[in-house]
């Protein structure tokens, strides 16, 4: 979803009974949408299988492998036999895909394959880095607020609503205009925007789990709060959290791409997927050599659909387990 991309949002406190709470945190409406069909499919159960038998399916592993491959390429970019992403070869300007340049070159004679792999570093660092940070902070606080609650929980909850009230892309754009930009600052801002959303999902899931018999039993045995949170609650909250975090990564990649496309992500000589597409649109490049814009678009589509699909599978599996409980 596009900004639908699309990140995004103040959540309403009101919700129809049938709607799952994770939607509350929805940066994107995407999250909301995908929950529902999964449930309906499970309910119709045309396959006649018990819902607990839900398997990840081969597609999940293909997607995981693809994302892992992209991450490895981004990490190993400087070790791999790639051409320099900034070297301008004026004898090979705008060449199509050849053996020498697998994806061709751009209007300045730079190798597109290497620009995309180097450019993906920015998207992946911001995407995975900010969500990991948000998981650590927002997730931990969510677990705490869901289990212990109390005045601190109320304050945290109100705080999350305040941050969610800001339109994320707008907030990031404007703050970096005044504060300056760097990979670190961008990752930090993305994490701040994402943390309250993860906080809300994890808090809601924890609330739903906190009164299960095994938690009460653990409490009766005299287990400490920390132990209950780590050993009883965390394993049950994690599947929902990871599934939601994957969508968070996808949304962060979209927002970073939009910023870069607007020329407002990392500063220029550094390639990033969004600014390669932007360069592909400038100076009549769409007419002369549309590959410049096409390849990074395909890269983004592949990585986003992999992430969305993995999240979808994880969620239906997690929900199947809920049914069993």
């Amino acid at each position, binding site marked *: 979803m*596009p900004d639908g991309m699309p990140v995004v949002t103040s959540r309403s406190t009101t919700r129809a009974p049938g709607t799952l709470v994770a939607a509350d945190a929805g940066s994107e409406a995407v999250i909301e949408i995908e929950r529902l069909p999964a449930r309906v499919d499970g309910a119709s159960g045309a396959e006649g299988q018990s819902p607990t038998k839900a398997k990840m399916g081969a597609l999940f592993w293909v997607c995981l492998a693809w994302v892992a491959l992209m991450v490895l390429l981004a990490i190993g970019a400087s070790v791999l036999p790639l051409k320099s992403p900034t070297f301008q070869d004026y004898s090979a300007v705008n060449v199509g895909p050849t053996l020498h340049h697998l994806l061709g070159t751009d209007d300045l004679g730079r190798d597109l394959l290497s620009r995309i792999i180097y450019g993906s570093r920015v998207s992946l660092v911001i995407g995975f880095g900010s969500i990991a940070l948000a998981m650590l902070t927002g997730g931990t606080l969510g677990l705490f607020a869901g289990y212990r609650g109390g005045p601190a929980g109320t304050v945290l909850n109100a705080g999350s609503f305040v941050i969610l*009230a800001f*339109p994320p*892309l707008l907030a990031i754009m404007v703050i970096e205009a005044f504060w300056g930009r760097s990979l670190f600052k961008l990752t930090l801002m993305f994490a701040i925007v994402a943390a309250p959303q993860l906080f809300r999902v994890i808090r809601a899931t924890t609330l739903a789990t906190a009164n299960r018999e095994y938690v009460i039993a653990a409490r009766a045995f005299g287990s400490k709060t920390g132990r209950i949170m780590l050993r009883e609650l965390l394993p049950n909250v994690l599947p929902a959290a990871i599934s939601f975090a994957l969508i968070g990564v996808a949304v962060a990649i979209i927002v970073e791409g939009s910023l870069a496309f607007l020329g407002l992500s990392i500063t220029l000589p550094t390639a990033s997927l969004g600014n390669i597409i932007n360069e592909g649109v400038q100076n009549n490049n769409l007419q002369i050599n549309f590959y410049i814009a096409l390849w990074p678009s395909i890269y983004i589509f592949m990585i986003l659909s992999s992430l969305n699909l993995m999240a979808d599978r994880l969620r239906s599996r997690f929900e199947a387990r809920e049914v069993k409980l």
Partner: protein
Amino acid sequence: MARYISMRLIQLVVIIFLISVLAFLLVHLLPGDPTIAILGPNDTPSARAELLRQLGLNRALPLQYWTWISHVIRGNLGSSFLTKQPVTNAIAVAFPIDLELIVVSQLMAFVIAIPLALIASRRPNRLFDRLATTSTFGMLSLPTFVIAVLLVLVFAVKIHAFPATGFTRISQGFGSNLRSVLLPSIALAVGSVAVYYRLLRADLISTLQEDFVTMARAKGLSTPYILLRHALRPSSFSLLAGAGISIGSLFTGAFVVEVLFQLPGIGYQLVTAINSRDYLMVQGMALVAAIAYVIINFIIDFLLTVLDPRVRHA
């Protein structure tokens, strides 16, 4: 009900206050002397002193906020240091363009998504449903900026069906105005189609399993009649909620589309202002856009509460 609404109103006021504080503090994120950063190094000392007085930068922080907010409430957001145009003017000129983009794209999205969902939910898991469901899943993985670029490539560059850039105001002709916003609106609509289709399909499928639908079938009513007259209305709540929620993402999605197609809406103006370091313009637009976003969300929440008895009594 009255209590709920007044609680929400208090929340709204608190959030708007916080937004104004944050917008006010933005100027303090600037490195160095803010008057130099805002006016540039070549302006006269008197202009600098004037700005200093207007921003109240030489006083204590709460007093500064008070000075600033009392200007803002009287509609004075300062003026662009480049064009000297008052920020409020610039916003008034730009905002209708965002509005038009959002309205046109949402109309398109509804016109496409609702029939698709009706046809698909008639026979779930059959060919049509699978095709539509899979392709909308794919559409969710296409950010607006990718869709917009692909649309320009196909419709403007390859087959010259639409102008690639530029905007014609309604006052200069309705037809050419519509032509100039058509491609940008399609780019925005694609994501919404996917969202709305999936929401409505899921609700329709569960509504069609209700007893009253079985009853209608038993009475011998035709399937199209049942879908339209019996099933659509009780199934449209998530759709409306989804439409409300996605306004925020549309608003920022519109930024990207405006820059690509060079439509002078809020997003285009904001990006131009950021690139030319026109800080007061950025601050004013951010303030107005964020407040508009919060108020729109509030109104939608309110409407959903009024429309749906389940939420009202929850």
